[in-house]
């Protein structure tokens, strides 16, 4: 695959920033800070570490949905990253006059 860096840079400049709409996915801050973030960071956690009165089933449903969306975004970004990693860099061919 050939990547035209000039086109890519201009495309990125013109692209609209995509952000997760926080209002649409009201994730429980407790579950994000005490469960999702530590596990994503590789910290070992026990079931007994959680305060079960700090969230309800809806919070778990919302977190699950949020993780699903994050997972999809992560998958797409990984795909793009893979394309870049597999592309062989080529020096621009220019005529040189001595």
């Amino acid at each position, binding site marked *: 695959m050939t990547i035209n860096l000039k086109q890519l840079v201009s495309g990125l400049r013109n692209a609209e920033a995509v952000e997760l709409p926080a209002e649409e996915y009201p994730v429980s801050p407790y579950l994000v800070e005490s*469960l*999702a973030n530590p*596990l*994503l*960071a*590789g910290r*070992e*956690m*026990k*079931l*007994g570490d*959680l305060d*079960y009165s700090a*969230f*309800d*089933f809806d919070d*778990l449903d919302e*977190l*699950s949905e949020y*993780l*699903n969306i*994050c*997972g999809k975004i*992560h998958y797409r970004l990984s795909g793009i990253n893979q394309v870049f990693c597999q592309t062989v860099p080529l020096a621009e061919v220019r005529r040189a006059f001595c």
Partner: protein
Amino acid sequence: MALDYDELERTLLMVYAAKLMVDNGKEEEFRQHFSGWTLDCDDTYSVIWEALPYACDEMFTKYYENSEMERFWFFDHSMTDFYKLCRVYNERHGIGPDKDPNLNPYYKAAAAFVNEELGFDAYTCDYALQTDVTRKGRCRILFVHDCYFDGLFELMRAVYAVFGYYRQKAEELRALLDAGENIEAKEAA
């Protein structure tokens, strides 16, 4: 090791199971047997499997190798209490054993509720509601699933919901029957 989003989503089922236990008055059992489990997507099934019996008074299982089917039998005093009270209701309302038990609105509503909860997957599992309180061990829920079944957590959630329902409705029915008795006693006096 860090979990990815997919693994974390699967690990959440462990938290759901733990939350179900805690919210249904099984906090002590949870602290005693489950609080030390590490949150790991590979242990999700094991935790739910271990936690399932706490959803009722007694649970038995049997696996049939030839058919690759597994049967569960769930027993709970709330269910027995409820159907015993249904018999009292039937006697008072002239619904004899030869008549359709669905003439009793409590019986009918309970069957519909159980069907709503346990009929979550018609392809890989099924259930039977056995309500005979005159024979020992015949007031129970029989649940059966094949090798493609993937709803152990849904089953756990449904068992908690069903026995919670029986507990609540048994109280309502008992109050109704007690009130009826008081009225009859007053009329007789």
